[in-house]
Structures are given as C-alpha cells and as structure tokens.
C-alpha cells in the first residue's frame, strides 16, 4: 500500500509537533523516520496510524483519503515503543487477539487461528513459547511478539515506533538484520521511527530526516549521507567537523577571496579530511592531540595551528600504517577539499564557480 501525506500538521496545545509535512511512500518501501527526540517523528507515525488526529492536511492510502478514518478502519500494523503487550494474556492470546475480535462472519475458525498463530510464532522464532506471559519473556522476545501480533491481522502497512529503543546493543543488532530480512520476505510497506542514525542507515531503503516537526531531507541512506541539503542533516548524520567565523577566513579553495560572515558554517566529515606530512595545496598545518584506533579505522584528533580549532580526521588503518603511525604532537597538513558551507539553510558552495584546483594557500602565509 502506498502512503501520501499532504500538508500534515499537528499541534499539542501550543506546541506544533508536526508542521506541514509532505511525504510520499511507495508500496513496499522500507522507510526510517529519523530525528532527535522532539522532532515530531513519533507524532508523524501516530498520525499515519490514526492514533492522533491531524489539525490539518490529508493522509492518502493507495490514493484514497483516509484522513478521517478511525484506527480500526485503517488496518495498519502498529508496534509500540514499549510493545503494549496485553499483560494478562498469554503470548498465544496476544497474537491471536486481532483475529479473535473480528466480527463472527469474518472470523477464522479456531483451527485456522491456531495454525496462523503457530506460523507467526515460527516466523518470529518463538516456537513453543505460546503459553508464556509477556512478563516471562526477555525484551527482545517481547519485541518479536509485538511484531507477530501486528502481523497476524495481515496489515498492508507496518508501523514501528522506536522498535529497538528499549533493547541492549547486542539484541538490537540481531533484530535489525532479522527485521530487514522479514521485510524482504513479506514486502509490506514499513515505516519505523528511530533516533539512531546508524539503525536508519543500516535498515531502511528510504531515510526521512526530521527536525522541529519538519522533514529536512528524504532519500536513500547513501544519498542523505553523502549529500546533506541542510546543516542539520549534516550534523545529525554521522560525525562531522564544523568550522565557523574566523576559521573560515583563510578558506579560499576556489581562488576567490570571498568573505565569510559569522552566520556561515562549513562542514566536513572526518574521512574527507586528507592528512599528509608535507604541505599540499590548500592544506592547513595542524598538530595531533590524540589518536584513537578503533578496528579498521583510526580517529585522529587534531588542532589547527592557525585558529586553534579542534577537529577530527579518520583514516583507514592501512593508510595510517603507510603514514608510519602518528603520535601526540606530530605536525601534519590537513586538507579540507570538500568543505561544504551553509549560510543558514542555504548552500553556498554553488556560488564559487572556479574549480577546486586553483589553490592559493601557502604554508608561510598560514604560519604567520
């Protein structure tokens, strides 16, 4: 089922939680609503489910207006953040609930319900636990029961609110892969909310980055990561170095002395920073303040000698070894080729028309 949101807004008292959101989700898509807490992502999910009513805007399912339809009529599968399992029912009864409450003429036979529940228990890898109560299961198991319960009614949309938020890191990692596989198997349009950018990147086909009730950017994980269109997306997705004001003064990579105002901020990801022991064009002298080896990557904290800014660079272990290792106090040259500059939400880079090869920075100038 496809979902289209048109100008959707929701206000709680005086607080605007979702502001004029436009979004199209094609059938079978696997979407992550990503944002910090208070960004409106959970509200947006609940609006889609009908658990909240919008103040204005429209919600279309398969092109049909569902805005005024009740939760029940929408037939969405919803997995709550804290699972909302029925405490007084066994796992079996929890999963069977949606089938048992159907009007008699649509209700499957007892045998059909039994076999459906067994099938779902198998799907979520909880065979044999049907007679237990929710309190007797681990967090990860409860999460899977909640999912099975939502899937029992064969929804055309699956909505998950922070599905792994309450689980520890290891279980979370396992469930991510598992849910991804499940989506491939069932191919239901799936939307999940998360504040964890890694989770969104790893699982989703489409990432919707939200902030302050608005959608900042929508796109594939690679696209959103590689080409952020706002400073927020830059700073929220992945590690990033920020340079503002003074630190940009000497930055004239395109050969044009274009003054930068205080409002302008330059972003560059650690792995985009080139490090070398000798001066290369358009590089700044910097001193190593800390080296942190994590697996295949090496994170190096540096201090720019001209402006005293601290920043982080990341090298592959291989590259790091070629450089012969680094230690605190080493002086290097850092190259900021892909610095992306925003003025407010406006990208400035397009204003520089010269190619980046015309480099003018000289070490003597920088040192003085």
């Amino acid at each position: 089922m496809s979902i289209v949101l048109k100008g959707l807004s929701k206000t709680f008292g005086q607080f605007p939680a979702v502001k004029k959101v436009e979004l199209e989700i094609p059938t079978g898509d696997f979407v992550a609503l990503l944002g910090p807490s208070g960004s409106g992502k959970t509200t947006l999910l609940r609006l889609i489910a009908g658990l909240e009513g919008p103040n204005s805007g429209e919600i279309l399912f398969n092109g049909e207006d569902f805005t005024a339809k009740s939760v029940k009529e929408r037939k969405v599968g919803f997995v709550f953040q804290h699972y909302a399992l029925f405490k007084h029912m066994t796992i079996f009864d929890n999963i069977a609930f949606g089938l048992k409450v159907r009007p008699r003429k649509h209700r499957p036979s007892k045998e059909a319900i039994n076999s459906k529940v067994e099938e779902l228990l198998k799907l979520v890898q909880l065979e044999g636990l049907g007679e237990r109560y929710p309190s007797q299961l681990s967090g990860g198991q409860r999460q899977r029961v909640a999912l099975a319960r939502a899937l029992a009614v064969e929804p055309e949309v699956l909505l998950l609110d922070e599905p792994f938020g309450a689980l520890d890191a290891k279980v979370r990692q396992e469930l991510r892969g598992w849910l991804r596989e499940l989506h491939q198997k069932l191919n239901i349009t799936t939307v999940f909310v998360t504040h964890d950018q890694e989770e969104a990147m790893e699982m989703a086909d489409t990432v919707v980055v939200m902030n302050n009730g608005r959608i900042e950017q929508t796109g594939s994980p690679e696209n959103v990561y590689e080409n952020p269109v706002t400073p927020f997306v830059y700073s929220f997705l992945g590690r990033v170095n920020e340079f503002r004001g003074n630190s940009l003064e000497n930055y004239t990579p395109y050969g044009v002395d274009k003054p930068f105002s205080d409002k302008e901020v330059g972003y560059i990801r650690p792995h985009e920073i080139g490090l070398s022991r000798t001066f290369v064009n358009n590089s700044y002298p910097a001193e190593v303040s800390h080296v942190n080896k994590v697996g295949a990557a090496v994170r190096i904290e540096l201090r720019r000698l001209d402006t005293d800014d601290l920043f982080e660079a990341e090298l592959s272990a291989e590259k790091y070894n070629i450089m012969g290792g680094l230690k605190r106090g080493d002086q290097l040259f850092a190259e900021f080729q892909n610095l992306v500059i925003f003025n407010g939400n406006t990208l400035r880079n397009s204003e520089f028309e010269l190619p980046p090869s015309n480099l003018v920075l000289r070490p003597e100038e920088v040192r003085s």
Partner: protein
Amino acid sequence: MKSELVSRQKKQSTASITKWVLIGSALSFLGIFILVPLIAVFTEALKKGVELYFLALTEPEALSAIKLTMITAAIAVPLNTLFGLIAAWAITKFEFKGKNMLITLIDIPFAVSPVIAGLVFVLLFGAQGVFGPLLAAYNIKIIFAVPGIVIATIFITFPFVVRELIPIMQEQGSEEELAALTLGASGWQMFRKVTLPNIKWGVLYGVILCNARAMGEFGAVSVVSGHIRGLTNTLPLHVEILYNEYNFTAAFACASLLAILALFTLFLKTIVEKAGG
C-alpha cells in the same frame, strides 16, 4: 580506637532504644484506639451468654434490619461501580478542560457531613420538600421509606470506586487500548478484553470499600429513615435503637455483626492489595 568502638556501641544501643520506644508508643496508641474498642464490642455482646447473643441476632426486627442493609448495598454498590468505571474512563483516557474541577466535584460526598447528606434528600423528597407535593399526589414515599435510605447510601458511597480507579488507570496509560484498536477491536471488545482485566483488582478494591461503607452508613441513613422498626431500620440504626433503649447486649450483638463485616473487609482488602501488586 577503643573509645570509638564504645561510642559506636552506645550509639547503636540508643538507636535501638529509640526504635523500641517508637514502636511501643505507636502500638499502644493502636491498642487503645483499635484493639480495645473491638474487644469491647465482642465482650459486651457475649456478656450475658451465647444464647442471648444469638437470640438478639435472630429476632425478627434484627433480621429485617439485616435484610434491608443487604438490599441497600445490593443497589448502591453496583450503581456506583458502574458509575466509577464510566467516569474513570472519561477522566483518565481523555484530555478536557475542567478535569480537576470534575474530580473535585466527584469528591463532594466525601467532604459533606453524612447528616447534611441526609438533610439534602429530606429537602428534596420530604413532605415539605421540593418534590414533596408531587410525590404525595402519586402516593410515593421516599423519605422515611426504603428508597430514601437507598438514595442517601448511593450519595454517601458515590466516590469510592471512581477514586480507586482514577490513579490506577492514569498510571496504566492507554497504550494497550490503542494496540487493541490497531488490531481491529471494537470499543466494547477493547474495554472488555483489555481495560477490564487490567483494572479488575482496582475495581474489586473499590467495591469492597464501597460495600463496607454502604452497609455501615449511619448518619445519612438516620436522617432519612424515620426509624420505623422492622421497616426502615438498617443494621446500624437498629444498633442505635437498641442502645438507646438500654438493651446493651442486643445492641452490641448487632454491632458485633458489623464489626465482623469490618474485619472481613480489611481481610479482603489486604488480599486484594497483594493480588493486585
């Protein structure tokens, strides 16, 4: 080193003395105010022998008082339980203006003197009351009759169930109900299969307290009953009449029944508290 040890021991012994002094005074207070009156009821009731005790309980007027007490509770408790469920639903599951005001209004019967509660219904339904002439025209008697007793009891026990349910339902939130709706349950199915099982202990607790008060109410019922023996006497009123006639043994015999009811109530309450967690 040694002096430190001694001073610590001294400290510990003062702490333990404080402890036992506090426990002792608390228990003495409870002994004087709870245990002694309880014992007094049963001692006085059995003073003249077991035979007289049971005679007092089985005389027709006592039996009719017991019957009326049970009828009253059997009407008032279900009505207030139903109200409690519905009002708690409205108050805890929705946001609306004036919620705190509504809760305070529901509390009014707790704040009103029982005598005033009785008076209010005399002013409404009594011979000189607002509906007095109307009721007289149709020959309906409410005051100094059973309906008055029932209405006054409903008033007095009005908030018991709802006050028990509001905090429980507030704490539980609405997620399970919402989950039921997303799974296609109707409103009634959601209430019966999800809400009710979750609050059953709270309901039971409220019902137990409501029942105890309904059976034991004295002031309000006293004002509206008219004290007609064998007709409009509840058990507490019967106790009063016997006492005022200096028939102490019979009075305490009936009182002992009510005391047993109270102890049983406390027992059930403790069990329900445990079961409900």
